[in-house]
């Protein structure tokens, strides 16, 4: 029932992200380019490979999309996504499937119409998602709404992809420190399994 918190082994901040981005501009390592936008001219192979990448992929990959149950707990819905392309491609497909909403009895927690503007990969397993303003606008004042929306994304990616350790969310390219009037999103977030219904939880 009580959670002591997943050990925060890596809370690398924006500074680190910026360092990486800066390094990318001036130096040899491949840049963590936006990899998810339709308009992006970047070829898929420009995305740095993460550990685990490179094996011949099967045709589909099962992912766990997280939505809410009637008691406002997160609950997973299994979905198969096309396993082709790079890790960034698969992450983008997963996020888009999540944003499209549940197909079963669960409740959607991402405001309808939310769009993924860009997706960035960091070689240490931090995925940065840049969402459009619909995401922030569509949340109500209850902190439960904002928490569920944020962690539906974080848990979905962190649970479905072994390569993902943390997820950082940007809104319209910017850090938000008061999402839904409550949440500070200036740091990468770790999956929170205490938000799920489960044994020992009410």
């Amino acid at each position, binding site marked *: 029932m009580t959670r002591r918190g997943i050990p925060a082994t890596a809370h690398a901040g924006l500074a680190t992200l910026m360092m990486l981005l800066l390094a990318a501009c001036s130096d040899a390592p491949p840049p963590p380019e936006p990899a998810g936008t339709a308009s992006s001219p970047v070829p898929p192979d420009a995305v740095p490979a993460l550990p685990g990448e490179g094996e011949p992929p099967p045709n589909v990959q099962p992912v766990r999309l997280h939505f809410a149950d009637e*008691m406002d707990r997160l609950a997973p819905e299994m979905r198969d996504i096309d396993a082709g392309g790079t890790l960034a491609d698969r992450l983008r497909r997963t996020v888009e499937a999540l944003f499209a909403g549940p197909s079963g009895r669960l409740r959607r927690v991402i405001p309808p119409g939310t769009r993924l503007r860009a997706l960035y990969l960091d070689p240490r397993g931090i995925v940065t998602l840049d969402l459009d303003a619909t995401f922030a606008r569509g949340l109500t004042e209850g902190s439960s709404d904002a928490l569920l929306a944020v962690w539906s994304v974080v848990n979905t990616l962190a649970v479905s992809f072994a390569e993902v350790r943390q997820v950082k969310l940007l809104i319209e390219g910017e850090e938000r420190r008061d999402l839904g009037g409550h949440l500070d999103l200036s740091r990468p977030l770790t999956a929170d399994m205490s938000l799920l219904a489960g044994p020992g939880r009410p």
Partner: protein
Amino acid sequence: MKFPLLLAPLVLVVPLAVPLALAAEPLPLSLQVSESIQGDTQRIVLAFSRPVTYEIEETKVRYTLRLREPLDRDSLRDLAFEAGPVRRVRLDRSSRGAEITFVLREPEPHITLLEQSEPFQLDLTIRGSAARKSVTPGETQDIPPGPDQEMPPETQPEPQEPPPPSLPDRLPKSSPGEVRNIVLDPGHGGSETGAVGASGLREKDLVLQIARRLRESLTSAGFRVLLTRDEDRGVDLMTRTAIANHAGADLFVSIHANASGSAAARGAETYYLSSGAPDAQAGSLAGRENGPAAPGPASHPSEEIQLVLWEMAQSAQLARASRLAEMIQSELNSLSGLQDRGVRQAPFRVLVGATMPSVLLEVGFLSNPDEAQSLAQPDYQDRLCAAVTAAIRRFAESIKREDKAELGSWDPSEAGR
């Protein structure tokens, strides 16, 4: 002072790991800048990890604080503001240490600097020309003085001319190991209504009612209590923790009511800050910890130990917040009809930057018609407040016991030296 007191028990716990000479060396200096704006008045709080000496240099378009020692690398981040008399805050290395430069949008705004200890903060209020015209005495008072907020003369802040807006009160200093000063923070207020229940009950009104009742209940239990707002007005999130820091709070409790898209969702929850969140002091450490191993100040062995101690102090704070959250939640669970949604961690903005154990209480769901009805009832609010008061008493007693057990015959005045 808060920080050495916090460190003291830790030093005792790990006496073998800490060379005696360490105590004389300063910790790395980190800085967290927060800004809030109201009309044409900007308030910028520079929260340092420890006291520092500085000089001020003013020109028509710049206001610079020169520090005689370097800031840690992670503090060197610039900030830009879209509105207000300060356009930018620039943090630079200089030959002598570091410089904090306020780049002004309009020449010669009125700047008031207030130095606070415990924790060491420089609180700057910058009034633009529009604000100077409109400020009237009386409307700047944040917390009306009440019977529980009397300040003994020795804790009076230095008289400032003119008084900066939103300057909060201070509570008398608690003795070491004593948890007596509580700052309660009713969420939202003013134009920020917060959640609204089916019956029309508004979060901002409900949490103010509960906070006032809780003040009453805590005061009769011997605590000293301050509210971040005691009326229907908006208070910036950063200002709420700044009020608690400034007041010398031993605990900070933010009070909220929840809402969900699902009418069935119900129950109270107690939150504390997730460890990955940008805590006032933990932030710079996290950056270092995960950054590439680089030659620099952090690679010095004794400084590594200091960083470890620093982190331990931070996690001790978080551990205490977690314990308080557990105690509050367990009392709430024993209230009949209140369902346990448990203790959770989340990066609540309002908890970031508090230098004392801080928790956020979601008293229940306004979107649940039954729960909204209960929450509106005075006797239910009384029971809720009695439960929270009982938890805070238990917490205060546990800290007292712990402090006694750890200190033994050791002299507390040696702490942090």
